């Protein structure tokens, strides 16, 4: 319905104006008069309506407030219910605890407890109610008639101690109650500083424990009694007041005391006085018993009349008492006395025999040393002329000789070589036996070593119409290369020497036990009986070979050298078929770093004006060397001794280009001294000391003096190299 106009549009304007004026008039009157008497009923309605609106608004607010109130009431009620439920649960829970349970708050006031709390203290339990202070609780308990206070402790003392315990975060103790009842009290601090007390009745436990302990003690007493009666020792047991409380029959027997005298409570002094008056040993025991505790155990021996020897042992017990035991050791003592007599006789005989043996040993040692010295000296003295002979021969080879002379020269050289070999072998043996030889074990590749040996022995094998085969190998072992080479050299040489036909095979085998070097020949074989003998020096089987081929020293060297290196040598041989010597070389080793190749030997391309000083006391040696060096175009100043050498150099006023000093055995230091004198005047000079002494200390001393050694018999190649190096120095 569209709103209708207040005025009827059909009315005339005048009528409309008139109506509007009337409407305005009535509205103005209403506004001005508000409510007059005539309109009281409507005014009442109007007031009621206004009021109603206010009431409605107020009611809404009230309802909202009421609603909130109800909600919070509901929540409060729920919270109260929960709190009550929690409290009830807690109370139920602590009631189900089998122990007495009490909870004190952080202010030390009892918050709650269950019905078993303080149940055993029936006279004070009614007072144990929430609100009770801890101090009052302790006071009540300490005053309880049920409490069994320890002797000498008053109720006040007990309360003080109890309160002191309360200061601990956690404590646990057992309280004795009247009527042999026991209460264990555990006290723990809670998170908020309150205290929980648990009281557990442990009467049953404690009584049970006590009974068990009593039974145990009874059992133990029976066992001890049985043991005492059983053992062969006499035993007396005393208490802290030194009164006898236990013994066995054996004790009376051993101490020879009338057993009626043994009675409980017998004082130790009475017993000791009765035993053996004046015995010092027993005085010692008395002092021990009377001495201050704790006493160290005491052991002594006492001889009773009739030669009975007793071993007595006294020991303190934890309670201050002590035990003394006696053992009859008469038989043992007799046996020991007999033994010591026998021992003395035996020792005298051993001493006498040792003396004899010592003399024999000294004799043997002297003989051995004499022999070694003889061999060394003889070898050395032989080497000197041998070196000279070789030098002469070397110089002669450069001469123009007729064929016969050349042939003789060749044979001479061969003979000299044989002599030299024998002498070397003898020197080796002497060194090996002296025990002063130092070996330097290191990784040694067997391949190159064997290859060189094969090369060395090939001509000999060919001369004898034998085959010499060598299996190539890459094996490496730990050994002293020099002595290993010498061993194999001797084994191969020996094999070739004693084989008529066929040949020799050299091979290396890897086995579980390690590497084995084998030298197998097709010779006549070695009879069982000779298999030990062959390793002795100067022993030769089937002495077919000429003297120049050796004196049977090879295997002796092999045996000694391999013993020195720790290599075992075994022999496997069948007569008429051949022999095989096996050298056991131990486990394989890592290959050594490849050594730099040796520098090539320089040719004696020497300048013509080179001057050498030769000092040699032996005139043969001096001549031979001079002859050799002259042949190389070197001008040699040769003198017999250091003094002349110094004088000569002084006279010339010119230092030589090099110096060679031939030293006799034991006279090497004179040569070193000469070089020091020369060096002081002319600076360091190239020099070599020629010696047959192969001693390590000397070698080192010479090196330090700047005079390295050249060993005799002289290797002309090494000499040539030295001279060449001295020439290049300028």
């Amino acid at each position: 319905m569209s709103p209708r106009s207040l005025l009827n549009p059909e009315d005339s304007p005048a009528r409309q104006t008139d109506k509007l004026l009337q409407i305005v008039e009535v509205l103005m009157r209403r506004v001005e008069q508000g409510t007059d008497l005539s309109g009281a009923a409507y005014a009442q309605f109007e007031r009621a309506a206004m009021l109603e609106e206010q009431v409605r608004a107020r009611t809404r607010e009230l309802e909202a407030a009421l609603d909130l109130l109800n909600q919070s009431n509901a929540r409060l009620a729920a919270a109260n219910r929960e709190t009550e439920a929690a409290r009830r649960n807690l109370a139920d829970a602590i009631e189900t605890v089998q122990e007495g349970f009490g909870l004190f708050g952080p202010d030390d006031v009892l918050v709650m407890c269950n019905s078993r709390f303080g149940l055993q203290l029936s006279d004070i339990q009614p007072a144990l109610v929430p609100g009770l202070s801890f101090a009052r609780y302790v006071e009540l308990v300490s005053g309880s008639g049920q409490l069994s206070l320890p002797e000498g402790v008053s109720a006040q003392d007990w309360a003080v101690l109890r309160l002191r315990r309360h200061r601990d975060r956690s404590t646990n103790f057992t309280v004795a109650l009247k009527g042999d009842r026991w209460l264990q009290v555990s006290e723990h601090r809670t998170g908020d500083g309150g205290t929980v007390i648990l009281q557990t009745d442990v009467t049953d436990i404690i009584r049970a424990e006590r009974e068990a302990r009593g039974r145990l003690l009874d059992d133990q007493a029976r066992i001890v009694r049985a043991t005492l009666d059983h053992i062969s020792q006499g035993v007396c047991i005393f208490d802290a007041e030194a009164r006898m409380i236990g013994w066995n029959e054996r004790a009376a027997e051993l101490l020879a005391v009338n057993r009626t005298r043994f009675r409980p409570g017998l004082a130790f002094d009475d017993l000791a006085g009765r035993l053996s008056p004046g015995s010092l040993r027993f005085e010692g025991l008395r002092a021990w018993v009377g001495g201050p505790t704790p006493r160290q155990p005491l052991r002594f021996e006492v001889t009773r009349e009739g030669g009975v020897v007793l071993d007595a042992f006294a020991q303190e017990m934890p309670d201050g008492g002590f035990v003394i035991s006696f053992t009859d050791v008469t038989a043992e003592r007799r046996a020991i006395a007999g033994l010591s007599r026998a021992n003395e006789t035996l020792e005298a005989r051993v001493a006498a025999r040792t003396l004899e043996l010592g003399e024999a040993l000294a004799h043997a040692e002297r003989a051995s040393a004499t022999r070694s010295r003889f061999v060394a000296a003889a070898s050395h003295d032989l080497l000197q002329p041998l070196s000279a002979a070789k030098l002469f021969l070397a110089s002669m080879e450069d001469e123009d000789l007729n064929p016969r002379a050349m042939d003789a020269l060749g044979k001479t050289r061969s003979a000299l070589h044989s002599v030299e070999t024998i002498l070397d072998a003898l020197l080796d043996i002497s060194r090996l036996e002296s025990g002063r030889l130092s070996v330097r074990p290191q990784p040694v590749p067997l391949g190159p070593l064997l290859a060189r040996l094969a090369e060395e022995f090939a001509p000999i094998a060919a001369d004898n119409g034998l085959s010499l085969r060598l299996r190539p190998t890459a094996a490496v072992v730990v050994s002293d290369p020099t002595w290993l080479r010498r061993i194999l050299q001797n084994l191969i040489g020996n094999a070739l020497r004693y084989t008529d036909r066929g040949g020799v095979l050299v091979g290396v085998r890897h086995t579980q036990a390690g590497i084995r070097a084998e030298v197998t020949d097709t010779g006549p074989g070695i009879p069982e009986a000779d298999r030990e003998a062959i390793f002795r020096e100067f022993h030769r089987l089937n002495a077919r070979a000429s003297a120049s081929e050796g004196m049977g020293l090879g295997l002796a060297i092999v045996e000694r050298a391999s013993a020195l290196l720790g290599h075992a040598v075994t022999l496997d041989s069948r007569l008429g078929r051949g022999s095989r010597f096996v050298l056991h070389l131990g486990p394989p080793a890592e290959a050594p770093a490849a050594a730099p190749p040796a520098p090539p030997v320089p040719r004696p391309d020497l300048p013509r004006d080179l001057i050498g000083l030769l000092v040699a006391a032996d005139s043969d040696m001096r001549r031979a060397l001079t002859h050799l060096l002259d042949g190389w175009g070197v001008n040699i100043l040769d003198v017999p001794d250091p003094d002349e050498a110094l004088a000569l150099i002084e006279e010339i006023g010119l230092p030589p280009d090099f110096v060679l000093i031939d030293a006799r055995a034991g006279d090497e230091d004179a040569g070193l001294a000469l070089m020091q004198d020369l060096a002081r005047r002319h600076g360091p000079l190239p020099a070599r000391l020629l010696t047959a002494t192969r001693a390590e200390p000397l070698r080192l001393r010479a090196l330090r003096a700047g005079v390295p050694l050249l060993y005799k018999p002289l290797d002309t190649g090494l000499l040539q190299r030295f001279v060449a190096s001295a020439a290049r120095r300028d």
Partner: protein
Amino acid sequence: MAPEVMRVAETPADDPQAAATLARSLGPGPFALVVVFVSPRAPERERQVRALSRDLAPAPVIGCTTAGEIAAQGYAEGMIVAAAFPAAHFAAEPLLIPDLSSLDAQAVIGDLIRARGALARRRPDWEHEFVYLLVDGLSAKEDELASLLSPGLGATPLFGGSAADGTRFLETFVFHGGKALRNAAVVTILRTDCPVKVFKFDHFRPTDTRMVVTHADPARRTVQAINAEPAAREYARLLGKDPGQLTPFTFAAHPVVVRVGGRHHVRSIRQVDENGDLIFYSAIDEGLVLTLAEPLDMADHLAGALAGLTGAQRPAAILACDCVLRRMEAQEKQLTGRISTLLRDHGVTGFSTYGEQLNAMHVNQTLTGVALYPPGAAP
């Protein structure tokens, strides 16, 4: 089963043994109060009421004449309906106001307060209280009475209805103490352990069409002129109708409202006087601005409003005062069946009025009443 909060009985208005029938139907008491709604067609209405008072004594019997009853089947006519409140759940104190033309406010308020105090002492454990007013519907004193009673109510809600005389507007009675009284009112205070909720439904929406009362007789609730024109004619013009076609159904469908305190209140028109004046059901005055209102769908609105009474619990019974104009609108719009079904389904008992009272107000064209919930329930 929910405890019985209100027991209802009915019998045709011409039943010669109406009182006996009703007493038998209500069954054994004791009752704190019995209210009878008596059709104007009932012969010997005073005798019946007296007989009922005697039969149900000591329960007080109060009541009034109606413009139709609300009984077991909803809207009804030509019936006598009795609603009885069991003493198990109610205590009642009816107060008679015998002469509305000479009201002594202090005396009435004093009686009211004393009566409430007496009830509170008698039943301090029952915490719910409401006041039920039955007043002569032709006295034109309802506004004054409602306003007068309110200081004596305190926080207790009041609702009530104006006695009616069908659509004749000749004589209306209230019953008290076995007597039929005119120009009187009965104010009854009820205290109960049943939670109660006093309510007022109306279903109008103001339009933009407004008018000004330029001449009126407030004492007779008569408006002579609107917008300086004869009232009926101007009302008809604003509706777009012929002034000769204005009937009670027109007034029911097109009420006017006044705006007070931010709310609109219906001022219903009762009838057109021969001289073209408009007679209202409620107080009126010169200089009022009346706004034409249009109705919402009455049945839908009622269904929603009644459903709204069910909060935590459905009401056990409803005692209602329903404006006669609503009954007319239902007839006009052929909604009587739907409305009756709704009233029946919600257990509404009461009568059709010439006006309703809520607290201090006298209003029109509403359904005003009290919802009674089972004891112990939250409304």
